[in-house]
C-alpha cells in the first residue's frame, strides 16, 4: 500500500519534471520559429522592392537585359526559397536553400548596381535613389532579425544537445535547427575584373 503510494508520488514528480523539460524545448522552438517570421516579413518586403527597381532601371539600361533578367530570376528563386523555409523554419535543407538563394540574389544585385554606376541618368533618378535607400535599410533590418533568429536557434540547439534535455529531444523528435548565415557571394570576394578591350 505505502509502496504503491511512494511509487505513485515518485512517478508524478518524475513526469512533472519531464514535462517541464519538454515544455521548455517547445518554448525555445517556438521562439526561433517566431524569430524567423520576423526575417520573413523583411525578406518579403525586399522581394517586393526588387521588381520596382528593375522596372525603373529598364528605361535606362536597355542593353543590359541579361543582367536585369538575372536579378528577377534570382529574386523569384529567393522568394520560393523563403516560402519553403517559412513553412519549416530551422529545417536544415530549407535553410540551406534559402542561404544559397539569398547569396545568389545578393550577387545579382551587386552586379546590377555595379553596372548602374555607368548610367549617370539612372543614378540621379529620384525613384531609383529612394528604392536603393529603402533596399539598404531593409537589408539592415534583415541583418538585425537574422541576428535575433540565430540567437534563438543557438539557445534551442544548446538546450537540445545538453543533458538531460537531449534524451527528451531525441525521443520526441526535436531535430536540430539550422542557423541562417549569409555566405558572402563570389562576386564580392573576387577582385574586380578590369578589361582594357
Amino acid at each position, binding site marked *: 500500500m505505502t509502496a504503491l503510494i511512494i511509487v*505513485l508520488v515518485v512517478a508524478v514528480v518524475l513526469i*512533472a519534471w519531464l514535462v517541464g523539460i519538454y515544455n521548455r524545448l517547445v518554448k525555445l522552438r517556438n521562439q526561433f520559429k517566431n524569430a524567423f*517570421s520576423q526575417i520573413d516579413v523583411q525578406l518579403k518586403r525586399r522581394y517586393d522592392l526588387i521588381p520596382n527597381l528593375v522596372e525603373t532601371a529598364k528605361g535606362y539600361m536597355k542593353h543590359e537585359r541579361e543582367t536585369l533578367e538575372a536579378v528577377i530570376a534570382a529574386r523569384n528563386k529567393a522568394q520560393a526559397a523563403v516560402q519553403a523555409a517559412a513553412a519549416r523554419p530551422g529545417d536544415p535543407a530549407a535553410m540551406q536553400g534559402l542561404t544559397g538563394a539569398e547569396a545568389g540574389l545578393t550577387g545579382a544585385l551587386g552586379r546590377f548596381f555595379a553596372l548602374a554606376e555607368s548610367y549617370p541618368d539612372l543614378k540621379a533618378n529620384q525613384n531609383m535613389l529612394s528604392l536603393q535607400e529603402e533596399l539598404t535599410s531593409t537589408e539592415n533590418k534583415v541583418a538585425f532579425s537574422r541576428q535575433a533568429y540565430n540567437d534563438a536557434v543557438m539557445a534551442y540547439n544548446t538546450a537540445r544537445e545538453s543533458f538531460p534535455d537531449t534524451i527528451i529531444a531525441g525521443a520526441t523528435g526535436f531535430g536540430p535547427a539550422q542557423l541562417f548565415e549569409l555566405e558572402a557571394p563570389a562576386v564580392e570576394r573576387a577582385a574586380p575584373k578590369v578589361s582594357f578591350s
Partner: protein
Amino acid sequence: MNFFERQEEARRSTRKLVGLFALAVFLIVLSVYLAVALAATWAEDLDLDVWNLTVFGWVAAVTLTVIVVGSLYKIATLRGGGQTVGRLLGGRPLQPNTRDLKERRLLNVVEEMALASGMAVPTVYVLDKEKGINAFAAGFGPGDTVIGVTRGCLDLLSRDELQGVIGHEFSHALNGDMRLNLRLMGLLHGILVIAMIGYWILRTTSSGSSSSSSSSSSSKKGGGGGIAFLGLAFLIIGGIGVFFGRLIKSAVSRQREFLGDAAAVQFTRNPSSIAGALKKIGGLEAGSRITNSHAEEASHFFFGNGMAKGFSAKLDDILATHPPLLDRIKRIEPNFDGKLPAVDAGAVSQAQQLAAKEEEAGGFVPGFAPRAPAPAGPPPAEAAPRTVDVDPATIADTVGTLDQAHLELASSFLARLPPALRDAARDPSGACAIVFGLLLDRNAALRRRQLEELEAAVDAPIHAETLKLAPTLDQCPVEARLPLLDLAMPALRRLSEPQYRVFRSAAERLIAADAKLSLFEFTLQRILLRHLEPHFHPARPPAVAYGSLRAVSRQASLLLSILAHAGQAQAERAAQAFAAGAGQLADTRAVASLLPFEQCGLADLDRALAALVQAAPAMKRRLLEACAATIAFDKRVTIQEGELLRAISDSLDCPMPPFLPGQALA
C-alpha cells in the same frame, strides 16, 4: 465602479476563491481516502476500518503533495505571464510590422486603444487554428499584457466589432482581472491534475494488461484490477476537481464579462460594436468555441464561452464561465429581438478583405468618422510652455478607462506621426533606434559624445538608423515622446535576449553620458525597464504589501517633494505645493514635510516607487490624487509635469490615459 474599486474587488474575489479551493481540496482528500479504502478492501480482502487514521493521514499527505506539486508546477510555468498563455493556446505572436492587411488592421485597433488608455502597446497573438470568434487578454499587469484573437475574429468581424472586442479585453487588462485569471489557472491545475493522473493510469494499465497478459497470465489478477479501479477512481475524484474548478471559475468570471461588455461600450461609445460581435458569435456555427486542448484550463480568459455544450443545459448554466449570449446582447441593446442572423464564413471574409484594403489605402477609418483632419507639415515647434487639462479631483477616476476623446486623440496621433517614425517603431531595429534617438541630448557637443558611445556599443546599421531618425525625433513635440515609446514596445519585445542586453547597456550609456539624470531620462528608463525586463527575465510580480499610508510615509513624502520641486523653482512655493498635495491624503500625518531639493534624488524615487507599487489600490488612488494636487497647485500643468504624473501612475500599475490639451490652447 472605478479602477481602484475593481482592483479591490479582484483582491476580494481572490480570497473567496481560496476558500472555495480549500473546500475542493478537502473534498478531494476525503474521496481519495474512500476510494483507497474501497480498492484495498476489494483487492486484498483487507478489512479496513472506515476510519483508519494512519491511512487517512497517508492519503491526505499524498493527495496534498500531488495537488501542491501540480499547482506549483503550473504557477512556475505561468511566471512567464501573458506570453506563456498565448503560446499554450497555440497562438502566434504578430510581427508589429506585418504587412498582412487583416493583421495590420487588428494591430492598428490595438495600438489606438493602448495609446488612448495610456498602456504600453501589448503583444498580439493570433490563434490561427480557431475558426470561432473569441479573444483573450492575459498577463500580470498592464505592463506585460498579451491580447489573443482567434482567426475567426480576424476574418469575420468588421473594424467596429473588432474594436468592441478589443475594448472588452482591454477592460480586463486594465482592471486586474488578468492577474486573478493567471493565479486561478495555476491554482486549479493542482486539482485538475488528479483527473489527469487517473486518465494516465487507466490508459497504461489497459494497454499493459492487453500486451503482457500471456506472460503473467493471472498471477496478480486482483492487483491489476485494483490498479485499474484506482485509475477509474482517480478519474471520478478528478471529476470533483474539474467540477469545483469550473464552479470557482464561473464564480469569478461571469459578472466580469458584463462589466467588460459595458466597458467596451463606454470606450468606443458605440453599443453596436460589441453587440455586433456577440451577434456574429451567435450566428456562426463555430460560435466562440476554442478547440485547443488547453481550452478548459484557460476558459475563464476568453471573450466568449470557449467550451462545448455539456450533457445537461441546467448544469451548463451553473458552471458556465460566461453569461448566456442573449443576456449579454440584451444588456447592451435592451430591445434586442433575439434573432441571430446566420453568418456565412466565406462571404464575410471576402467583404472584410475589401474593407481592410480600404483602410490600408489610408483615407477612411471606420469608427472614427468625425475625425479631425490631420494638419499638414511637421507638428508645430515648441513655443511657450504648453499646458494640459488636469483636474486633481477627478484624475483618479480616469485611471484604467478611456473614452472616445482619447481614442480620437490616439488615432490622430498615429495619423500625424511621420511615416518614417511609425514604421521604425514597429520594427525591432527601428524601435531601438527610436529609443536611442530620444535619449540624444540637444547640446551638440554632448550629442557628439553620445553618438560616439553609441557607435562603440551597437552594430553599425542601428547607429546609422539612429542618425537617420534623429532629425525627425527632434521635431517631435514633447507630448509625443512617451506615446512613441509605448508604440515601440511590441517591437522591442521581439529582440532576442542577447540583443536586448546590448540594447539596454547602450541605452544606459547614453543616459550616463552627461553624468546627470534628467527627469525625461529617468522616466524613459523606468518605462523601459518596467515593460521589458519582466518579458526577458520573468520574476515574481509585486503583490500588495502595504495596507496603510503610514507604512510608506517616507516614500510618499519623497514622491510629493519631487513633484513639488519639479513644478516650482522657489522653495517657498514648493512647500505650498507640497502642502496642497499632502492635504489630499486623508491622514495628513502620514507624510512629513517637504524634503529639501538636495534630498530628492531620482535614484531614491526609483526605490520609493518600487515600494509604492505594493500599496493597496485604495492607497494608490489617494497617492495619485495627492500627486495631481501637487502639480496642479499653481492652476497650470505643463506637459512635462503631466508626463511625469503619467509615468508615476504607470509605475504604480495604474495606466492613466493621456491628457487632453489644455483649454487655454484650444
